[in-house]
């Protein structure tokens, strides 16, 4: 009998161990994926922070003004970036004092040279490979920090493509999102939490907000296209249309988090204010709102981070347009960082891959810092009553 119980116990303990091992394994799997994902992105993206440059003699002359390819000597014409050469005439117009001189300059190399130096797939001819090896032994080729990636707009030449116009577009769109969503969101939450009677209408609004939070983001894109662009005539691809669309998408997040932080302010605060003769709005404005502020701030930052990474609705309203220069106003065609990632990911030239990954690293860094900031603020200002 006791033997049987012992055997039974053994079996049960074994089952316990198996179950716990499964749970640990599941968590470990998620963790392993996180690790794999980040190391993969870093490995793919870091090379893009460097860019091959070649030391060549650049001739500033009328001949090169007319035909820019002649600005460098013949053997270099195929290994120097064509896109860079194309900008030379403009550069010479801006610097007339250089005309007639020849200067040795570090110049951005062609994309295939860059990929060859980084040991990636490339289409560089044998002859140029030898030339690069030769130049490298003379110290005339180097991998330098890729400042162009942060200061250039998008380009059809991978070696010149940068994220600046996308970053500026993202900033515009997010500013508009805050301007529209934050006041309306906080006001809605204030109404529902502090003013509204508990009636049918209030319940309808509440159910609505919950539903709104669950609607797939792409449908907000359909809304933006049909209402903002086709009906109200906002320019297609503009930051205005994008900001409005994302604002509607962020609204439920801000409302829900604001309500939660308003709820966490104890009623004794309100009752004390009422007891001293304060009106409802005075109570809210002077007491409840300041106490709920950290929670509102955290929620807004999280909502903003989500809006910042959103792509699908912006594709629908045309924000994946090719935008080489940073937009000057909210009505001009703009693109945002996630949309830039999407367009680069679809490019057939392989060299865009590392730039895509690098743009992803930039985006992830910003998003993680925003989320970290939100967590820090919550820890710093959270009050337990």
């Amino acid at each position: 009998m006791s033997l049987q119980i012992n055997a039974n116990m053994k079996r049960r303990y074994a089952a316990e161990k198996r179950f716990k091992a499964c749970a640990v394994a599941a968590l470990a799997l998620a963790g392993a994926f996180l690790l794999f994902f980040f190391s993969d992105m870093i490995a793919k993206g870091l090379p893009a922070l460097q860019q091959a440059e070649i030391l060549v003699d650049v001739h500033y002359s009328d001949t090169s003004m007319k035909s820019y390819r002649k600005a460098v000597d013949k053997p270099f014409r195929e290994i120097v970036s064509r896109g860079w050469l194309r900008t030379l005439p403009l550069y010479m117009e801006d610097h007339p004092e250089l005309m007639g001189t020849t200067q040795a300059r570090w110049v951005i190399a062609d994309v295939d040279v860059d990929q060859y130096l980084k040991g990636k797939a490339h289409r560089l001819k044998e002859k140029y490979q030898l030339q690069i090896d030769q130049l490298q032994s003379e110290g005339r080729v180097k991998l330098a920090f890729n400042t162009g990636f942060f200061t250039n707009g998008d380009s059809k030449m991978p070696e010149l493509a940068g994220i600046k116009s996308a970053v500026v577009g993202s900033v515009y769109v997010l500013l508009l999102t805050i301007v529209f969503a934050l006041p309306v969101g906080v006001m809605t939450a204030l109404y529902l939490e502090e003013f509204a009677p508990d009636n049918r209408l209030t319940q309808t609004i509440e159910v609505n907000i919950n539903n709104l939070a669950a609607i797939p983001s792409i449908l907000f894109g359909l809304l933006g296209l049909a209402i903002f662009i086709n009906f109200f005539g906002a320019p297609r691809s503009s930051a205005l249309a994008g900001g409005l669309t994302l604002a509607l998408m962020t609204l439920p997040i801000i409302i829900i988090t604001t309500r939660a932080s308003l709820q966490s302010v104890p009623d004794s605060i309100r009752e004390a204010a009422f007891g001293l003769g304060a009106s409802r709005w005075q109570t809210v404005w002077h007491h409840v709102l300041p106490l709920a502020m950290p929670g509102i701030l955290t929620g807004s930052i999280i909502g903003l981070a989500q809006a910042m990474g959103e792509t699908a609705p912006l594709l629908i309203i045309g924000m994946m347009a090719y935008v080489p220069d940073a937009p000057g106003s909210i009505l001009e065609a703009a693109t945002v960082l996630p949309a830039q990632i999407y367009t680069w990911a679809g490019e057939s030239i392989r060299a865009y891959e590392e730039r895509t990954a690098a743009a992803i690293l930039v985006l992830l860094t910003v998003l993680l810092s925003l989320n970290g900031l939100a967590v820090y603020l919550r820890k710093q200002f959270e009050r337990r009553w």
Partner: protein
Amino acid sequence: MNVADLSFYFFAGLLPLSVMAWMLGRNKVTGATTSERWNSRPGHYGWYSVIWLAAPALAVALLAGLLHLTGLYPVSGTVFLPVAFMAAAAGCWQGLRLIRPSLRAMYAIEKVIRGLLITAAFTSILTTIGIVIAIIFEAVQFFGIVSFWDFITGTQWSPDAASGENVHGMFGSIPIFAGTFMITLIAMMVAVPIGLLSAIFIAEYATENFRNIAKPALEILAGIPTVVYGFFAAITVSPLVVKFADSVGLHADYTNALAPGLVMGIMIIPFISSLSDDVIRAVPQSMREGSLALGTTMSETIRQILLPAALPGIVAAFLLAISRALGETMIVVMAAGLRPNLTWNPLEGMTTVTVRIVDALTGDQAFDSPETLSAFGLGLVLLVITLILNVISIYVIRRFRQSYE
């Protein structure tokens, strides 16, 4: 002057005027010689006159906007600005005239504030109505061209071949929904076991310190933008799947359904784990202790007591996760194919509802072409499914809360 400049001048003019009105209103109280007691604080009278200044100006702006949009009367800037500011001045004058000790300025302000808050609350309703109307309006046009029956029972989706009147049988959505459900199924097969077991570990086995690290770490997965997941699925996971399939002698397309499904599953893990964690922890401690006191092991308590008790909440989490997976766009746009394909083989390329919506609306078609309109037809179905799933999960969770809280 364009609209942007005009609104800039309008608000730039309104701001200093408001400050002025505030000061005028307040000074009328502080500078008053009457011995009567004022009903409200001086600042209230300041705000009172600001409201009287701003309301007519905003009303004029609204009217001008409406006239402009409907095209009844093109409002030019040289007319609009003077009229708006004159209305503001008249309003302010009237407001200042009304200020007297017996005026209950505070109550008036509170009423206006309340009105503003209600207006804000209605934007959420307006947004929902806007989405529904925008989608239904276009979807109705689509179903005017393509019969609804053909749409839900057809097995061929080839909008490129549809031109002019020849639309019959070209918009059969079954292969698209089949692809959507296949990818969702793969995602759920990844997310449910990992998410649920992680939640169980975090809720029941982990120490407080471990929990404080593991939970935010899992949340990172939800914070990664979907476009990044899409790139990862297309560039890293898809070739891995192809290589793996090759090594076991199978053929896999580069746009196979498995890669986006797997990556989407990983994206959804935190949705399931954090909601399940919440509901498991919400099961009363007494049930846990009662079971353990009878001599059960931890896993027996979890499987036989806690999970059944938390089941409604967990089901709600699944439903929300499914609706998230159905509506997910970027991962499938970047990693799944464009080709509608009715198959059970996840190694083949297939397409989803969201992919076809993006494809139809980012092309060069005219806005009223059947292909563009088909996006709204698909969007309508997606919206309806999502809302149904959401309503069920809200209902289930409410029942769960009622039984334990």
